[in-house]
Structures are given as structure tokens and as C-alpha cells.
């Protein structure tokens, strides 16, 4: 039976990964992910988790060891963020191309320079072209649930791709929340043992990672692209299975009060929880606002998103990182949303706001300002994106 306890979210994620009976953890510490790996090494040291904990000497070696381990057939986990993610990024492309279901918890943190250990989504956006499945959690319970789901999704033979579980650094990782952690038996029921179709085994030799010349590389990419495409319905199917067993239903895009909204906010991560409180307050004063929260960022659920926001007159798109495109083009989330809407016959007024960079708080007041800004603007008056709350 799940127990409901007050626990720091990082520790909850570590406990959950332990319940998933991982075989190998190879990780390098980086603030604010440290409590996850520290607690995992405690679980191993005390014999609560039977796994090999490899204290590698850099994040690059962490992902390298994970690739070796997953290719050998072991259930493998790691965690990082920000600079550590950037350092291992070359290998992330390789992990997904080799179709290895590694699970990685990313405690989202800003990228340097200037060096900043607090929460934003620059590392999440950095990762979006690597071929990994990206799950987003907005609160501690979701972080726990996404961790279990990540293993089940990645290891599903129809998918076989690595999965990131994103949780906001400090804002979530270091916060104590009341949550339900399933017991080992429940997790075992939901998550069957890992049985890869191919692994490194002297009894059945395979060669992985060979040279792809121009005459075959395109086919390799097509095969990988198809795998990521085909994963979308399977992810929802697994979410539904999770709901049947644990009672919490997840969707690729989740909506709150969007049915009759004329202004819809689109956001990712814990900031969406603040938004929902602000929405309640705005609704109480007669403003018809709602929010669409993206739960799965890769594969990008364009159809589900358009279904959720297509009818709105105004869209408030939040980005917690910049795309450095030179000023005339929106931030990453806005770009993807606009692209999804492009030829669907909708033409809302769209505002794109860069918020919460480097750990800066976003308040209910900020939401009211953003909604007002878009709602009251004339068409064509809104720039491609705007920084809010910046000292001029």
C-alpha cells in the first residue's frame, strides 16, 4: 500500500528509482541534483537497493558508462542538469540512436555564463533535439510517478528509447512535499523486468555503433524518427495503465479551465502550478483564462496541443530559456506551439514571454500582467518575445 509521507522531492525520486530495481547507476554530482545521487548511493550502501553505483569522474563518463551498461542489458539510471548535461550531450544523441532505454532525472538548471545554479529550462531545451523522450513533472508527486513511468515507457519494446524525467531544480528538488510513494510490490506489478531484444552477450555476438556511410545514414535516421513518432500513442497507453493501477491519470497535454477560455497560457514545469493559482484568482474576477500544460515535450504532442488551445483568442506562451535567434523569432516553446498552429486555420494573438530565467520567481501578479498585455494588445503590436520583470 502506498504510504503518504512528507519528503524532499529529490529523496522521493531516489527512493522511487530504488523501487524500480535499477541495476546500475553511474552519476556525477551537480547542484541541484546532488541529493538524488547521494540518496541513491546511501540506498546501495545500506543494502536497500541491489545495484552498482559508479561514482564516475565526469558527466561525460556518466553517460558513457550508462550506454555501456544499458547495451549490456542492465536497467540503468543517471541524473544531471545544466553544465553536466551540456558536457554529456554528445553522448545523448548516441544513446537514443542506439535505442538504449536509459532513464535520466534532470533537475533543470540554468546554463552558464554567468554561472547560475538555480532553476530554468535551458538544459531542457538544449536536450530537445537529441532523440530522447522528455517527460515533465510539475510537483513532487509527478516527479515520483514520472520516474516509474520513464522505465516502463523506455523499456517498452515498441519504443526502446532513453527517457528524461524533468523536475525543476531547487524549486522542486529541494522542497519537502506530502506525497505517496508506492511500495515495491506495486511497482513490480507495473514494471516488468528489463529484457532487451539485443544486448552485448558473448553467446549471441552483435556489433553496435558502427560506421554509417552516406548511403545508409538516412535510413538509420528514418528508423529512429519512426520510433520516436510511434512512441506517442504508446506513452498515452502506458499513462492510462498507470491510472488504472495507481489512480493518477496523466495526459500528453493537460488542461485546466480551458473549455471556455478566451486566453490560454501554455507553460511547462512547476511554473504552471503557480499559473493555475493565478488563473483561479483571475476567474474569480471574471477573466476567462485557462492553461495547457505540456506533460510530454518530446515527442511533441502537436495534435493534442492544437486540440486544447485552438479555440482561444489570445495565447500567452511562456519560455524559461532563450533561443538566441537574434530578436525576431520567438523562444523555443513558442516556436513549437506556433509551428503546430501554423496551417490549422487558427489565428490567435500570441505573446511570448521569457520568464523565470536563472531561478527568478514568477508571481501570480506577473501572470495577470502577461494575460492583460496580450488581451489588450492590437494585432501586430506584440513583439516576437519579451522579457518580463527585467530591470531596464
Amino acid at each position, binding site marked *: 500500500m502506498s504510504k503518504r509521507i512528507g519528503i524532499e522531492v529529490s529523496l522521493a525520486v531516489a527512493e522511487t528509482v530504488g523501487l524500480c530495481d535499477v*541495476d*546500475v547507476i*553511474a552519476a556525477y554530482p551537480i547542484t541541484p541534483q546532488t541529493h538524488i545521487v547521494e540518496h541513491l548511493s546511501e540506498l546501495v550502501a545500506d543494502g536497500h537497493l*541491489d*545495484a*552498482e553505483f*559508479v*561514482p*564516475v*569522474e*565526469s558527466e*561525460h*563518463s*556518466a553517460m*558513457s*558508462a*550508462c*550506454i*555501456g*551498461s*544499458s*547495451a*549490456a*542489458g*542492465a536497467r*540503468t539510471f543517471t541524473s544531471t542538469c545544466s553544465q553536466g548535461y551540456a558536457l554529456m550531450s*554528445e*553522448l545523448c544523441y*548516441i544513446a537514443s540512436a542506439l535505442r538504449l532505454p536509459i532513464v535520466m532525472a534532470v533537475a533543470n538548471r540554468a546554463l552558464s555564463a554567468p554561472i547560475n545554479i538555480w532553476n530554468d529550462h535551458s538544459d531542457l531545451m538544449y536536450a530537445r533535439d537529441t532523440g530522447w523522450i522528455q517527460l515533465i513533472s510539475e510537483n513532487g508527486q509527478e516527479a515520483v510517478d514520472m520516474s516509474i513511468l520513464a522505465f516502463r515507457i523506455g523499456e517498452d519494446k515498441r519504443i526502446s528509447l532513453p527517457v528524461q524525467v524533468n523536475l525543476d531544480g531547487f524549486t522542486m528538488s529541494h522542497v519537502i512535499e506530502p506525497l505517496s510513494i508506492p511500495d515495491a510490490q506495486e511497482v513490480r506489478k507495473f514494471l516488468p*523486468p528489463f529484457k532487451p531484444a539485443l544486448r*552485448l*552477450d*558473448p*553467446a*549471441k*555476438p*552483435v*556489433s*553496435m*555503433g*558502427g*560506421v*554509417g*556511410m552516406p548511403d*545508409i545514414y538516412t535510413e*538509420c535516421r528514418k528508423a529512429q524518427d519512426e520510433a520516436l513518432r510511434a512512441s506517442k500513442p504508446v506513452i498515452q497507453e502506458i499513462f492510462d495503465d498507470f491510472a488504472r493501477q495507481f489512480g493518477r491519470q496523466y495526459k500528453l497535454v493537460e488542461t485546466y479551465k480551458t473549455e471556455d477560455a478566451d486566453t490560454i497560457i501554455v507553460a511547462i514545469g512547476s511554473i504552471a502550478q503557480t499559473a493555475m493559482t493565478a488563473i483561479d484568482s483571475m476567474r474569480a474576477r471574471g477573466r476567462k483564462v485557462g492553461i495547457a500544460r505540456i506533460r510530454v515535450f518530446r515527442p511533441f504532442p502537436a495534435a493534442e496541443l492544437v486540440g486544447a488551445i485552438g479555440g482561444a483568442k489570445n495565447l500567452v506562451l511562456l519560455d524559461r530559456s532563450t533561443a538566441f535567434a537574434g530578436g525576431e523569432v520567438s523562444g523555443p516553446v513558442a516556436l513549437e506551439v506556433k509551428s503546430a498552429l501554423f496551417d490549422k486555420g487558427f489565428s490567435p494573438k500570441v505573446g511570448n514571454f521569457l520568464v523565470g530565467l536563472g531561478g527568478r520567481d514568477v508571481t501570480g501578479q506577473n501572470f495577470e500582467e502577461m494575460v492583460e498585455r496580450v488581451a489588450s494588445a492590437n494585432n501586430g503590436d506584440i513583439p516576437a518575445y519579451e522579457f518580463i520583470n527585467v530591470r531596464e
Partner: protein
Amino acid sequence: MGIASEALKNFKGFNLKNLPEVEPLSPGHRACQGCGEVLALRQALKAIGNNVIVVSATGCMEIVTSPFPQTAWRVPWLHVAFENAGSVVSGVEVAYKSMNRKKIIDQPDVTFLAYGGDGATADIGLQALSGALERGHNFVYLCLDNEAYMNTGIQRSSSTPFGASTTTSPPGRKSSGQATWKKNVVEIAVAHGAPYVATASPAYPIDLMNKVKKASLVPGPTYIHIFSPCPTGWRCGTEESVAIARLAVQSKVFPLYEVIDGEYYLSRRVTKPKPISEYFQPQRRFRHLTEAEVRFIQERVNEQYEKLLQKCRVQDGK
């Protein structure tokens, strides 16, 4: 007794009468004619046999043996990137350790072999190798040293010998080729406390195969530095690879020795050393050197050999 000595106390080596017949590498690989590196790799693999998982760094051997959708590997093989053979093999090794302990598989005797060239080992991959050595994983690491980044077009590495001509250390009016001495990765491995470290040359195949076999029997991290002539990059005839590998040993440029639990053992005493000019002669990469430069290098080779002899408790291979 040290870890290596304990594991090797009843070791019986190969000889010409009982050469292993197994060929974990197939013909049809795309190596250059006369490639000394693939020859060394072939000999090493024969010594280990089929119960192995091989991790490769990016480099000549990886490219020539894995032209997708073909592979020259008859044993499991994984290539990931250039600088991480040490960390990838660490992952494979702990995966097997964990899965065996948790009774997910029953394969306790697999050898974990990682290899890389001199670039992948001494330069870009040094950190990963260092981490793997320090953490004490159970694997054999082979550095296949052809003394430059050959696969990308003969650029210098920290393993390129003093005076050699490469595309990024070309001789010219202001330069005599490589201006620094070869980085001693063997000593780096010894400094990490690896229980078994050795040097080997494909011109002495029995010695090479015995060392690789010993490394696979010693628990923990083991390192073998293998001299690998490259006719393409060293600009010698394709038939000269083995002869040059022999000359390197006979001229004391590449002494053969083992370091077992920190004790040095010379494998082959060179009683009538050949002059270094004889070693240089067939290789166009040294042709630009003046007599004074050759003498300078000869002095250093002599001095390094004497230093090595001082460390050796045994000087004739037993």
C-alpha cells in the same frame, strides 16, 4: 602476495606449438595493406578467445572493422565515441557484475576488453581511462599506439615520438617535426596502482599474446601498451610493419617489460642494441632529421633505457 602475482602464479603461456586457433576478428576488414595495428589487435584477440565483450574507441580499428551493415567482429562489440572507451567499458563491466549478482544472468567469466589508439588513450581519452583505472573495474585496456592520429590524416598526438613528421608537426624552416617527447602512459597506469601493466609488440607475438592473456586473468584494471606500425602514416613499405616493430625493440626505442603489482620485469634484454638510425631508416617520417638531431635522440633513448633497467628487478624475462 599481490593481486596480479596471486592470479598469475600458475600461468602457462602460449608457444609456437600451441597458438590459439580462434579468430575473433574476421578477414574482409578494411585496414590498409600491412597494417601493424590490426595485426596487433588480431593477436591480442586470439589470446583472449570468444568469451569477451569488446569496447572500441573511435579510430582506425573502429572504422575498418565496422562498415555498417557489415562487421568484422565475431564477438560482441560496442563503439560509442572517441574519448570514452575507459568509461564505456566500466559501464559494461558493472552491468555484468550487477546482473550476475542479482541472478538475472549467469555469465561470471566474461573478459571486458577496451581498446583505443594513442589519441583515444593518451590525449582525448586520458580522463576516462584514469577514472576507470582509479575505480578499479575489472577490464583489459589495450592502447594500440601508431604514434599519431592516423585515422583523421596523420596528425600528431602526445604519443608521437620526438622529431617525427606528422601533418600537424611538419618539419620546415622553423621546425624539426614533433618538438616534445612521447607521453609515458605506461607510467600513468602504474601510478594508478593497476596490478598488471605491460608493453608489447606484434613482432613478438608469443610475448604479446601471453601478456594479453595474463592481463585477462588478473582481476582489476590492466593496461597494455602495444606498438603498432603504420605504413601509411610512417611512410614505409607495407611489408615492413613487423620488421620495424622488431627494430623498435632491438634499438631500445620500445622496450618490452611488465609491471606486476608495481614491480618491473624486463621481458627481453637487448644485449646488442641496434643504433636508432637503423630504426629510422625505413621510415620517411624521420628522414628530415640531421645527424646531430639523431644523436640527440639516441642519447635520450639510451638514458631512458638505463632508467628502466634500474627499476627492473628481473632483466631477462623470468
